[in-house]
């Protein structure tokens, strides 16, 4: 197992290098640069020499190869450099947002797991009953409804309801306070985006749990267990669900990695200062250093999550071994 993990970790190196080359090239294909955006878009006049000075200061006057090698060297030495837009160290900029994105991702994942696994299981066990139909409608609605749209509805709903009940409209806070500083304030801000994204996420996982459970419940060993008189609850919980969870774990892993950097619109709806918002801002600001660093981070998160999912497979199904 240890050998397998090491091998997988080593395989991440060419993946990261490929991603690095790709993001480096793609960013430079976008017309315009950070200096023009920073200095010449205020509406007034601008001295062109100021823009040239800025390009020299940021190294944008250097050949692409020199810029690429500097980027790779930075990656190899874990020195991500400074944001071209703010001039602050990227590690600091990302660190601020990482804790928020991680908390939302964990809360949304918990929401999804708590909804999806019971509902998917019940739906499969009660196949073709009204319960199954309700759960399926609920999950299809979740897949069809964009989480940012649900987020807008949630905010509007809170505004209208609070006005009707308390006379003054209230909306969730729009500035982040860490959980350990003020848990109530923190949760009153993050519970809503976690619910909005967790619902969509749960819908996908519910459908996957249901179909996996239906398949497993038709397996011979389940029939055998039933024939031996094992309690139905025990069959479902111990024999069926554990085996049905393999594809569900994959979905949860991928979605979790996605949530770390992909909640672009939802973050804007709730004014979350997360990684997704930073991603979009850095691209629109032509902040090459920041975009490259974020892409590399997301690639690393995906690769690492996949590794964790594979390890969880082995724990769920003892037949799976990664010795070779």
């Amino acid at each position, binding site marked *: 197992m240890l050998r397998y993990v090491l091998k997988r970790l080593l395989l991440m190196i060419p993946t990261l290098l490929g991603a690095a080359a790709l993001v480096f090239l793609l960013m430079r294909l*976008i017309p315009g640069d950070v200096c023009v955006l920073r200095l010449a878009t205020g509406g007034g*006049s601008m*001295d*062109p020499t100021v823009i040239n000075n800025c390009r020299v200061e940021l190294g944008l006057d250097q050949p692409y190869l020199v810029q690429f090698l500097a980027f790779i060297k930075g990656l190899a030495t874990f020195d991500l450099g400074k944001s071209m837009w703010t001039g602050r160290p990227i590690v600091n900029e990302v660190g601020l947002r990482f804790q928020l994105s991680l908390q939302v991702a964990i809360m949304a994942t918990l929401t999804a797991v708590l909804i999806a696994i019971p509902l998917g299981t019940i739906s499969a066990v009660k196949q073709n009953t009204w319960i199954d139909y309700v759960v399926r409608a609920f999950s299809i609605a979740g897949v069809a409804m964009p989480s940012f749209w649900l987020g807008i509805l949630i905010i509007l709903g809170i*505004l209208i309801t609070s006005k009707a009940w308390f006379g003054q409209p209230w909306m969730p806070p*729009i500035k982040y306070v860490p959980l350990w500083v003020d848990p109530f304030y923190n949760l009153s801000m993050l519970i809503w985006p976690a619910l909005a994204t967790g619902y969509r996420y749960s819908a996908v996982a519910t459908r996957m749990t249901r179909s996996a459970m239906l398949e497993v419940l038709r397996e011979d060993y389940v029939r055998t267990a039933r024939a031996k008189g094992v309690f139905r609850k025990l069959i479902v919980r111990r024999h069926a669900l554990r085996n049905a969870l393999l594809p569900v774990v994959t979905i949860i892993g991928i979605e979790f990695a996605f949530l770390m950097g992909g909640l672009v619109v939802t973050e804007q709806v709730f004014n979350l*200062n997360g990684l997704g918002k930073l991603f979009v*801002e850095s691209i629109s600001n032509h902040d090459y250093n920041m975009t490259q660093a974020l892409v590399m981070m997301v690639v690393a998160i995906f690769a690492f999550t996949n590794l964790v999912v594979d390890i969880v497979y082995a724990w769920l199904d003892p037949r799976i071994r990664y010795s070779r």
Partner: protein
Amino acid sequence: MKVQCSRLLHLLPAALLLAASTSGEPAQAQQPKKGGILKFVVPDEPPSFDGHRETTFALAHPIAPFYSTLIRIDPEDKTAQNYVCDTCTEMPKPTDGGKSYAFKIRKDVKFHDGKPVTVADVHATFQRIIFPPQGVSSARKEQFGMVESVTISGDDTLVFKLKYPSGAFIPALANPFNFIYAKATLDKDQHWYEKNVMGSGPFIFETHEAGALVKGKRNPNYHHAGKPYLDGFEAIFAKTQTLRVQAIRGDQAAAEFRGLPPKSRDDLVAALGKDITVQESDWNCVLLMTPNHSRKPFDDVRVRRALSLAVDRWGGSKDLSKIAIVKSVGGIVFPNHPLAAKKEELEKLAGYWPDINKSRAEAKKLLKEAGVSDLKFTLTNRAVDQPYTIVGTWLLDQWKQVGVTAEQKMEATGPFYASLNAGNFDVALEFNCQSVVNPLSDTSKFMPTDGAQYGKFQDDELVKLHNAMNRTADEAEQRKLMRAYEKRVLDEQAHNLITLWWYRIIPHRSYMKGWNITPSHYLNQDLSVVWLDK
């Protein structure tokens, strides 16, 4: 010796007072209350904290409260056109035929670290702005083109020597981005203020959480006695307009100081009633169409004039002002300013004729003469809803009335400016946005020599007119030259074509008092006179 343009500037307050309006505020003046934290939303985050380098309101709103300036517009004057001292003792009278200004610096101004603000600090500040050292970006260097030197006289007087008398000097000096920095800090590192804040303004910098907010607390040693009234403020960055409106509605923020469209104003008024106050004003920003003179057929003045003649500005003003942040019809000068064209003067310019049918018939005739009756081109526009997309879409319809087919190409800000800089466009919809209303300086945007003139043309006559206008001491002559300059830009040569001037709408929580709307979203943001009536 009087300051040039002074009579015109004296007339301005009354004119602008008419332009600005407030609703929902009690008529009688109230005694300001002390205390409280003002929370407001800011649509963007500044790239750096250096006011000398940046040009965005995203810097002015959260950072201006930390700094003092030499002079400023009077924060308690609704017209925003009276200049008062901030760190000087009194507004000086110019000498040497209007070419010399001596400012005496106050002795009681202190930086937030306790060190006194001296004439050397103010001198170092303006040296950096007007004559930036190698490697330092100064966004307002060109506005001080009339300044020959800045020197220290005695131990407390700063002297500006001008190359020629200019009415544009005092407004340039009152620019709210001219933050006073410490000489000792600049001597050590000219870039220190890009990432750090140390001013002498009404509030002391507390924290900046990147992407989230800027916090400031009251400066107990502020040099204007009794101010500020607030204990502090929180400027919260919120990108989306919907969220900003909801934040005001849900009382997570008291205001957004840039400007919201009419629909948002109406929604907030409907939802909050007396709890919301709306202030409105003409805005010193305008959208302009810039034909690329280096591309055919836009090198032909007949085609450029036809594009302007096709546009019904008077009718558009009525309709667009209901859905977008544009309203006033004007020429190249901020509407209602004494140097601006009056309605009867405007109506003589191509594109402003009162009879739109006659105007469009002329447009068709010109296009036919130029051999492009079925002209097709691309309008390059910024992918920003308010007001770019709306005005761009309106223009397509206007041009269609004279048989011109235009396709709108929406680009994100980066690619948009890349296209403009590279001359890779047919016609672009861009903007001219300024702070202190300063027509002599603001209209330099239309000069062929300006760095932000994307039309790529040469016009020596235009340059001559602009220089003459800036150097004459005679106010009537100045106005006459401005009309000639405007006619050449908009009509005779149709180098740039004005659409509609922006209109600023600020709905804010009624408990926020003391803040006055100005014609610019850059102005009056030091928050020293704002207080909370809670």
